[in-house]
């Protein structure tokens, strides 16, 4: 019983990091209709910047702040300098449908190579802001650590602030409106292009946090965030790619499920587990758990 509870809590902490990544993907998908595979690269570059700050100043939270800022700038930059140009050029022909996806892929490769050229391929680690030794209850030490708790709390705070932005501010309203019906939003006086760039910036910042949090209990390399991208994507698919709430729920389910596989079956099956979840969701409920009757395959 105790082991089940511990696994559940650790899964919650893992899943909450996936939630950030999947929110970043969903945000961009809703506004631009592209699954932004470069998100892993953007998050990685932001994390490297956060890593530099955190190691030099020895303050994790300052690093996190810089990672958020870097991620936001990078996200806005990618949309402004890259996606806009792309949508202007690639409009017709056999490749028009696939061009944006391929472009984000190229961007992921570009960022990865640049990071590799600057920092090299060796593993870096960021000093965790809290102890990674488990809590001690009475005599026993459980695997759930203060760091796990801190991750859950941090993600929770970020999710709450996102919810406030989206539900209670004008910016949030225009973000939702231009994702839902860009033309009508534009007619209503919303600068949809600018709003989209802001959406990319928010996604980038959230991705930066995800990168920093993953790295605080793991190592950082030019490839270390690929798995986070994949799990973030699976979580977003569970949620239906459209719904932010759905993607958070999907991420928590996925995180908990994978941690149970890790603790009860073995390391070798974690990835296969994630992949099976993806295939099953695609076969059984391709519109995600949040779909309300209407098919929303784009």
């Amino acid at each position, binding site marked *: 019983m105790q082991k089940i509870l511990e696994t559940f809590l650790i899964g919650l902490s893992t899943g909450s990091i996936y939630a950030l990544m999947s929110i970043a993907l969903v945000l961009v*998908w809703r506004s631009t209709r592209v*699954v932004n595979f470069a998100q892993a690269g953007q998050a990685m570059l932001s994390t490297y910047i956060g890593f530099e700050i955190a190691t030099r100043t020895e303050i994790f939270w300052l690093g996190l702040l810089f990672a958020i800022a870097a991620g936001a700038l990078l996200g806005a930059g990618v949309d402004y300098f890259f996606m806009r140009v792309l949508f202007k050029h690639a409009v017709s022909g056999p490749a028009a449908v696939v061009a944006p996806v*391929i472009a984000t892929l190229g961007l992921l490769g570009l960022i990865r190579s640049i990071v590799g050229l600057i920092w090299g391929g060796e593993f870096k680690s960021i000093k965790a802001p809290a102890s990674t030794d488990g809590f001690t209850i009475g005599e026993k030490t459980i695997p759930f650590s203060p760091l796990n708790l801190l991750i859950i709390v941090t993600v929770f705070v970020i999710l709450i602030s996102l919810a406030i932005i989206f539900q209670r501010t004008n910016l949030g309203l225009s973000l939702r409106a231009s994702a839902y019906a860009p033309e009508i939003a534009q007619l209503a006086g919303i600068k949809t292009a600018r709003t989209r760039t802001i959406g990319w910036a928010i996604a980038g910042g959230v991705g930066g946090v995800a990168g920093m949090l993953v790295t605080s209990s793991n190592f950082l390399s030019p490839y270390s965030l690929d798995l986070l991208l*994949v799990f973030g994507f699976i979580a977003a*698919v569970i949620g239906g790619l459209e719904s932010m709430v759905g993607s958070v729920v999907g991420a928590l389910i996925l995180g908990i499920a994978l941690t149970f596989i890790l603790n009860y079956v073995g390391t*070798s099956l974690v990835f296969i587990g994630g992949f099976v979840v993806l295939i099953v969701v695609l*076969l059984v409920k391709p519109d995600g758990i949040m779909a309300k009757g209407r098919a929303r395959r784009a």
Partner: protein
Amino acid sequence: MRKKLALFIFLGWILLLVGDRIDELRVYQGAQIAMYAIALSSIVLLTGYSGQVSLGNGAMMAVGGYSAALTLNNLGSPVWFAFVMAVVVSALFGAFLGAAAARLSGPYLAGTTLALAVGLPEIANQFDFLGGVPGILFDVGFPPARFGEEFTQYKWFFWIATFIALLSLFITSNILQSRYGRTWRAIRSNSLAAELSGVHSGRMKILAFTLSSALAGLAGAVMAMTISLVAPGAYTLALSFALVTGAVLAGVSSLPGVVFGALILVAIPEVADVLATRWGGDENLNNYLPGLIVSVLLILSVIFTPNGPGEKLKRRHHKKA
């Protein structure tokens, strides 16, 4: 059809003559070009014709490579049978995956195949019968003795790879010009209109995915032959990226373009090597310059000539006329 067959046989004959006159390294690179040409044709079929994006063709190559090696090592079968098994197993794998993902559009397929490309090497690391990190040997053996002493191993690879490439390109080109090719293009340009004309678009997409996987698996087996080994490290995400880049450079819907794309993919590491040495030969430069070149090429070509360099030329030609 008969004319095309004659053309392919003529091409093969020319390649044989060329293979005799160039040095060992070029012969080896010739085999690599043939391998990439097969792999790129799998993307042309899938992306250029049926309009789906797969980021996991590198993983499909791994499936083909492992099935070929396992067949050869465990069954003691002739070499040609190992290649056939590579095609069959990866086609089955593709059909299964296609059934799950291909009836869904764009982002789902792209994401699922990306997940596969990221995860498959890790999965291969975990299972003993797949040889773990060092991988398993795939040895097609020495060239037959009747070719004489002069006939080198690399030339043997070149012969096999070129033969397989010509054969599969011939078959692929015929499929693309058949009813299937036309149907795929119809689905790609307007799937609703295609369905109204009686096309079962889901089934056709799965078929495209299956054939594409089969081609990728074949390429994977050829690649395993050229490095005599199947290991997770050979089929990385970077390989999948490189394939997409090669296909976009080739012009995603041009089958003859794959030779051009393959040539560039083989040339990039060489160019990067020369540049890295000239700029100081730093370790990071050596490791990441090829990736940088690939990504910059991919980004530039997808922005400026998303339908391949051939399209611009054609359009210019039209304007003049």
